[in-house]
C-alpha cells in the first residue's frame, strides 16, 4: 500500500494509464492513508465516497481508451476552492455549512482531466497566515519533526493542509493558492515543490477571494515534473475571470527537457536579509553552484525596492481583503448570529463570531488604509511602491532569465511559536511576497535538510508567463539537490 501512496503524480499516471493499477486501488490506498493520518488535521472535509465513485468512473474511461490527462489520479483540494455540492469553508466559521452550488474553474479543469477529489484541505482562515494556525478547524501538524524531537511543527501556510497532505503521502498532489507565499512557503517547509504561476495563468473564478490582485492558484507536488503536469491541467483562459490572461496553455511537461545551458540566473543581493538562518544562506550559495555546474551563468542583480515589499503587501492585501470579506454579513449565506436587535447588530455579531482574530486584524488594517485621510498615505503609496517593485524585476530581467533566492527565512517552526507576534509571522513571507506584488511566477524546490533534519527550499522566480523556463530551471535544481527525504510516519504509530 505505501508503495502506491508514495508514487509521484507522473509515476501514478503512467501506471494507471498502463492499467498496472486501477484508480480504484490507488484511491482506496489514499482513503486509508488519510484515515490513519487524522492527527495531522490536514483535511477539513474528507470525501472518500465521492473519491471512490470518481475513481470508478475514471477506470471506466481508461477501459474505454479515453483517459484524460489526470485520469484516475487522486488529489487534495485546498478548501478555498468552491466545489459543487461539497462544503467549502475557507477554514472560517463565517461560512458555516456553506455548500457551493458551483465549481471553481481550476477544480472543474481538474475533474475534466479525470482527476479524483480526496477531500478539502485545511488552511489558514481565508488564507491569511503563514503557519495554518489561524484555521477555525485547528492547526495542521507538519509531518516533519526535527531529529530526536516529538515537538509538533507547523506545515507553513496558508496552504498548510495541502503541504502536509503532499508530504505525508495523503494525496498524489494538491492545489494551493498563493497571495504572498501561501503555496511556496508551506511547500518549502515540508520538503516538497510549490509553484505559484503568473497572475492570470489560473482562473480565480470560484476561489474564495483573499486579495484579488495577488491571489493565484497553483500546484503543490512531490516533484517539479508533477508541478508541470498539474499546472497544465489547472491553467486555462477563463472568460469568467476578467484578469485571466488570454494566452494558450502549453504542455508544461514537454517544456521540461533541454537543460539550462546558457541560462542566466540572477542572484538578487537584497535577499540576504538579517535574521535569516545561516543554513539558508549557505543553501542559497550551493543552489547557485548547482545551476552553474549545469551550464547556467550566475549574475548578481539588484532589486532595490525589496525592503518595501512586506509593508506594501501588508497594505494592499488587507485593503482588498477588507472589501472582499464584506460579503460575509450573515444576510444570505453562512453564519448568522442569533438574537440580534437590528441589522447593525446582525452584522457586528455575525462577523464578530464568524471571523477569527487574524482575519479581523486584517479587515481592520485594510479598512484603515482605505479610509479618507489615510488613503493617500497608505494605499496610494503602496500602489506606487508596487509599480517600483515591478520595475525592479523588469530591470533585473534585462540581465537574467530567472532569479534564485531562498524560499523561507527559516525551516518549519514549532506550533504556537509565533502566534503572539503577528509581525514575526509576517516575516515568513519576506522572500515570497515580491513575486505576488509583481505578478510573476515563482517556484520553491526542496534543496536540503537543516542540521537537525528539517527541509529547506530554494525559490526560483521567472518572467511573466515564462513558466516553461522556470520549470526547466527548477528541474535542474531538483536534479542537483537530489532531495529524496520523506518524513517518518510517526502519526500511524
Amino acid at each position: 500500500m505505501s508503495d502506491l501512496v508514495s508514487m509521484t503524480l507522473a509515476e501514478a499516471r503512467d501506471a494507471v494509464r498502463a492499467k498496472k493499477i486501477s484508480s480504484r486501488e490507488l484511491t482506496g490506498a489514499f482513503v486509508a492513508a488519510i484515515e490513519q493520518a487524522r492527527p495531522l488535521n490536514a483535511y477539513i472535509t474528507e470525501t472518500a465516497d465521492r473519491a471512490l465513485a470518481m475513481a470508478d468512473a475514471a477506470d471506466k474511461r481508461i477501459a474505454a481508451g479515453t483517459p484524460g490527462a489526470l485520469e484516475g489520479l487522486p488529489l487534495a483540494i485546498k478548501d478555498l476552492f468552491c466545489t459543487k455540492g461539497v462544503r467549502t469553508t475557507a477554514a472560517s466559521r463565517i461560512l458555516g455549512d456553506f455548500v457551493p452550488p458551483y465549481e471553481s474553474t481550476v477544480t472543474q479543469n481538474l475533474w475534466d482531466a479525470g482527476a479524483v477529489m480526496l477531500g478539502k484541505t485545511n488552511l489558514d482562515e481565508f488564507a491569511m497566515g503563514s503557519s495554518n494556525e489561524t484555521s477555525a478547524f485547528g492547526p495542521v501538524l507538519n509531518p516533519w519533526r526535527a531529529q530526536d524531537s516529538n515537538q509538533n511543527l507547523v506545515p507553513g501556510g496558508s496552504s498548510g493542509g495541502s503541504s502536509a497532505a503532499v508530504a505525508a503521502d495523503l494525496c498524489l498532489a494538491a492545489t494551493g493558492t498563493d497571495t504572498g507565499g501561501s503555496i511556496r512557503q508551506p511547500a518549502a517547509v515540508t520538503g516538497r515543490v510549490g509553484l505559484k504561476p503568473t497572475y492570470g495563468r489560473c482562473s480565480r473564478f470560484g476561489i474564495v477571494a483573499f486579495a484579488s490582485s495577488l491571489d493565484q492558484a497553483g500546484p503543490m507536488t512531490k516533484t517539479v515534473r508533477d508541478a508541470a503536469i498539474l499546472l497544465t491541467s489547472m491553467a486555462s483562459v477563463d472568460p469568467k475571470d476578467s484578469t485571466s490572461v488570454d494566452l494558450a496553455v502549453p504542455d508544461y511537461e514537454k517544456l521540461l527537457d533541454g537543460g539550462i545551458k546558457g541560462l542566466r540566473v540572477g542572484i538578487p543581493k537584497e535577499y540576504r536579509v538579517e535574521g535569516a538562518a545561516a543554513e539558508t544562506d549557505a543553501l542559497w550559495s550551493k543552489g547557485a553552484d548547482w545551476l552553474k555546474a549545469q551550464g547556467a551563468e550566475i549574475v548578481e542583480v539588484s532589486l532595490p525596492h525589496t525592503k518595501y515589499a512586506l509593508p506594501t503587501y501588508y497594505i494592499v492585501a488587507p485593503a482588498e481583503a477588507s472589501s472582499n470579506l464584506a460579503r460575509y454579513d450573515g444576510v444570505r449565506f453562512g453564519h448568522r448570529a442569533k438574537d440580534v436587535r437590528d441589522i447593525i447588530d446582525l452584522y457586528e455579531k455575525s462577523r464578530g463570531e464568524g471571523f477569527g482574530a487574524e482575519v479581523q486584524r486584517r479587515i481592520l488594517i485594510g479598512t484603515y488604509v482605505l479610509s479618507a485621510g489615510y488613503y493617500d498615505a497608505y494605499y496610494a503609496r503602496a500602489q506606487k511602491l508596487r509599480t517600483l517593485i515591478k520595475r525592479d524585476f523588469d530591470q533585473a530581467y534585462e540581465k537574467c532569465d530567472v532569479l534564485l533566492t531562498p524560499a523561507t527565512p527559516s525551516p518549519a517552526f514549532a506550533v504556537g511559536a509565533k502566534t503572539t507576534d503577528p509581525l514575526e509571522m509576517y516575516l515568513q513571507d519576506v522572500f515570497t511576497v515580491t513575486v505576488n506584488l509583481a505578478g510573476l511566477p515563482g517556484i520553491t524546490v526542496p534543496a536540503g535538510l537543516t542540521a537537525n533534519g528539517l527541509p529547506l527550499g530554494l525559490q526560483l522566480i521567472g518572467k511573466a508567463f515564462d513558466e516553461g523556463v522556470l520549470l526547466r530551471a527548477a528541474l535542474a535544481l531538483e536534479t542537483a539537490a537530489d532531495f529524496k527525504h520523506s518524513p517518518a510516519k510517526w502519526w500511524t504509530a
Partner: protein
Amino acid sequence: MTSPAKIKTIKGETGDWEIVIGMEVHAQVTSNAKLFSGASTEFGAEPNSQVSFIDAGFPGMLPVINEKCVEQAVRTGLGLKARINLRSIFDRKNYFFPDLPQGYQISQYKDPIVGEGEVTIDLKDGESIKVGIERLHLEQDAGKSLHDQSPDSSFVDLNRSGVALMEIVSKPHMRTSEEAAAFLKKLRAIVRYLGTCDGNMDEGSMRADVNVSVCRVGGYEEFRRTGSFKTLGTRCEIKNVNSMRFVQMAIEHEARRQIEVIEGGGAIVQETRRYDSKANETRSMRAKEDAHDYRYFPDPDLLPLELEQAWVDAIAATLPELPDEKKARFMAQGLSAYDASVLVAERELADFYEDLARGVDAKAAANWLNNEILGRLNRDGLSITQVPVNAAANNAIIQMVSDKTISGKIAKDLLDIVWTEGGDPRQVVEARGLRQVTDTGAIDAAIEAVIAANPDKVEEVKAKPKLAAWFVGQVMKQTGGKANPAAVNAALKTRLNLPDEG
C-alpha cells in the same frame, strides 16, 4: 452661451434670492443582461428570480463587464456631445447594506467612461439654454429591501442587484424648477432617441437626485464667470425624485426652506434630504451607516476599461438624428420653434409627424397633429403609439383638404368617424358623399338662394363688408358644409361687389 434672459428671483424677507440647481440622474441602461453578470434585467419579475451568484455576492464569484452596457454608455456620451474617455476605471464603493450583497457597489469614481458634455434645453417661451454635463459613469444598481412583507422581518429582492446604471451628473447650470424639469425631460428624450434607457420614471428606470442651493442675486453669474463655488450657497441633495412634477415641487419647497433658514439666522448644512410628495416637503434623511467614508479603491477584479477610438467612431456612426438636429430640420421645413420642440420631445411623436407630413405642407401637418390628433389622444387617455388612426390615414385626410376634396370642417368630422369606426378615409369620403362642392354652379345657386331670402342683409353688407362672413356661413349651411369655403368667398365677393380686403 448662457441665457440673456432676465434672472428669475425669489423674494425673501431680506431681499431677493436666486436658486442654483444641479442634477445627478440615474438612468438604467437598456440591455438584456446586467452590468457584470448574465442575469436578466426584465422589470416586474418574481422577487429573486433574476439573480446570478455574482449578483448575490457569493464566494469566489467574479464580475465580467457586459460589453453591451459599455456600448450604451458610450452611445449616451456621444448623444450628450461629451468626451469619451478611452480609459476608465471601475472602483469599489464600500458600505454595508442588506440590499448590497457584495458589501460594495462597483462604480466609477475618479476615471469615468464619459467626461464633459452639454444638453440644450427648450423653455416654454421658445428660448433655449445650455446645461453642462460634468460626467457620466457606469455603476451597478443595488437590490431592494422590502419592509412590508412581515411584521418582524425585512426581505431583500435582488432582481435589480447588478443592473447597469448610468449616473449622469450635470453642472449646476439650472436656475429654476422649470429649467430642472426641462433638463430632465430633454435628457429623457435623448436617451430614448438613443435607445440607451427607456426613461420610464414609474418603473424607476430614471431617477433624479437634485442638488439645490440658494444665493444672493449675482452670486450665480459670479460663479459662472470665475468657476468658484464660493459665491454659491451650501447645497442640499434631494435623493431619488421619481417624477418631473415632483422634481419641480421639491425644488420650490427646498429653495423656500433654505431661504427661511438663512433669513432666520441659521446656516444650511450640506446633507441628503428626501422629498415627501404627500406632505410636499423635504426631510433630512438619516445618514446611511458609515455613509461618510466609502473607501473607494480600484476594483482588482476588473481591469481598466480600455476602448479603441475606432470602436467609439463606429458607434458614433450609428447615432440616430437627435432631438436638437431634428428640431432644426423641422424648423427649416417651416415649423415654429415651439411646434418643433413639442414634436421632437418624444421620438415616437416625431416619427409619427414625419410620416404624417410626407408630401403635405409641414405647417398643416403640425397643426393637424397638435390640434386634432393630440387633442383626441389626450381626451381618450392614449399615447401616440396607441393612436387609432395611423399616420398614413391622417396624411390622406390632410391631402384631401389641401387638394380641396374636402373642407377643413369635414376633415375633422372625417377624423372622428375613422377614429371611432375605423376605415380608409378616402373610401369614407366617397361612401358618405363628403366631397367638397367646387362646382361653381352649385355654389352660385346657393348664393342666389341666400340673397333671395335675405334682401335686408344684402343692403347691410354694402355698408358693413364684414357681414360677408355671415353670407359664407349661410352658403355653407345650404351646401351641407361641402362647399369649398374659398370658392364661396370668391363667388360672394363678385356677386356682392365687395372690396378685396373684405
